[in-house]
């Protein structure tokens, strides 16, 4: 990906990151970086600050101290699938395309890849949680981005959905993208990926 203006061409770089919310230190000293083709797994027990860390990486929260660099074109998917429930699946797809540069993936093909062709004209409010998750994943296919920041992306997905996400991650990493992801399920990691791990539970002072 063309993010060469970044120091050392890291797509996401965090150094000595310290995040304090409401006077509580959530993350005291985070250091990690990912470059093209790498994936960083943010691990930690429930409540250790994974979501806060990922939100700060995405730019939704501010860090109190430390350095954070990130490429311009990135996609953040948090706990909510971030879709409009009063739009149909295909309308959501068209709406998502307004959020960034298009990757060239056709909407119909993206729906087919994610197994949503049957429900494309259904209002998203009527879909199950797993289906809504898949609709949220449409943006990963439709938008061009160097960095994916995913907060527990396997939530609500069935086995086929998990394999699908694995496939998407594979493609993205092979094309030189990077991923920062938190998950509780290790089984989706492929052996040929370059995986870095950052464990929040070990980061306590």
């Amino acid at each position, binding site marked *: 990906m063309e993010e060469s203006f970044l120091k050392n061409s890291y797509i996401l770089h965090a150094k000595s990151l310290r995040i304090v919310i409401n006077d509580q230190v959530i993350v005291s000293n985070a250091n990690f970086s990912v470059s093209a083709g790498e994936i960083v797994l943010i691990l930690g027990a429930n409540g250790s600050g994974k979501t806060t860390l990922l939100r700060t990486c*995405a*730019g*939704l*929260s*501010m860090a109190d101290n430390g350095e954070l660099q990130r490429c*311009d074109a990135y996609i*953040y998917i*948090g*706990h*909510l*699938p*971030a*879709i*409009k*429930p*009063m*739009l149909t699946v295909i*309308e959501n797809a*068209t*709406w998502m*395309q*307004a*959020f*960034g*540069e*298009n990757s060239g993936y056709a909407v119909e093909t993206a729906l087919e890849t994610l197994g949503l062709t049957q429900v494309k004209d259904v*209002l998203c409010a009527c879909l199950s949680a797993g289906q809504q998750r898949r609709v949220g994943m449409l943006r990963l296919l439709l938008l061009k981005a160097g960095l994916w920041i995913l907060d527990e992306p396997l939530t609500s997905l069935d086995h086929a959905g998990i394999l699908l996400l694995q496939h998407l991650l594979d493609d993205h990493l092979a094309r030189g993208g990077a991923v920062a992801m938190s998950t509780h399920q290790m089984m989706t990691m492929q052996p040929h990926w370059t995986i870095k791990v950052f464990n929040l539970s070990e980061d306590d002072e």
Partner: protein
Amino acid sequence: MNNHWFGCFFKTELLISWRQRGELINGLLFFMLVTSLFPLALGGEWALLQQMGAGVIWVAALLALLVSLERLLWQDGVDGTLEQLLLLNTPGAAYFAMLAKLLAHWLTWIIPLLLFTPILALWFGLTMEMLQTLCLALLFGSPVLCMVGAVAVALTHGLARSGILLAILLLPWCAPVLIFGTGAVSMTAMALSAAPYLALLAAGSLITMLIAPWLIVTTLKMVVA
């Protein structure tokens, strides 16, 4: 960004409002109910009703706005799409996306209102000229109310049961618009030109349209963090 993203955001908001048109009726019904109470309560005092007509309609419009404002950001906050809007990092993209949202909301509020104002004007005995000025004043001055209301919604975003707080934040800022809006109709009643008042309202709207989206996006970024 693809070329038509502003249009895309605008149309999406209108489409969602249309799909929830039952909620839009709420504001309109409230408007009509409130305005119809005054002729009922003030029976035969026609002169008084004609003097008050414009003011009552303005206040009722503002109250209808309060009713509809709560849904402006609530759904987007609940389903996560508000954060996606705030994450837009092309310069100005978040600003224009919010402007599109606000314009769509303004249209869904003001158009039913303007359609029903002539009927209400009958109840208050407003003349044709007064009605004309009133509609123009509503058209020019309502964006200010809507935008300031949206800033208040952004400030109270995420708070439960923020209805009263919203009203407290919003109403003082709406006083100038109410004064000029009713003043315009009074001028017409005295057979004078209302153009200066209308021009002031329009200027206020343009200025608020420039500033409000930026204020709202900045506020939401702090609230959401």
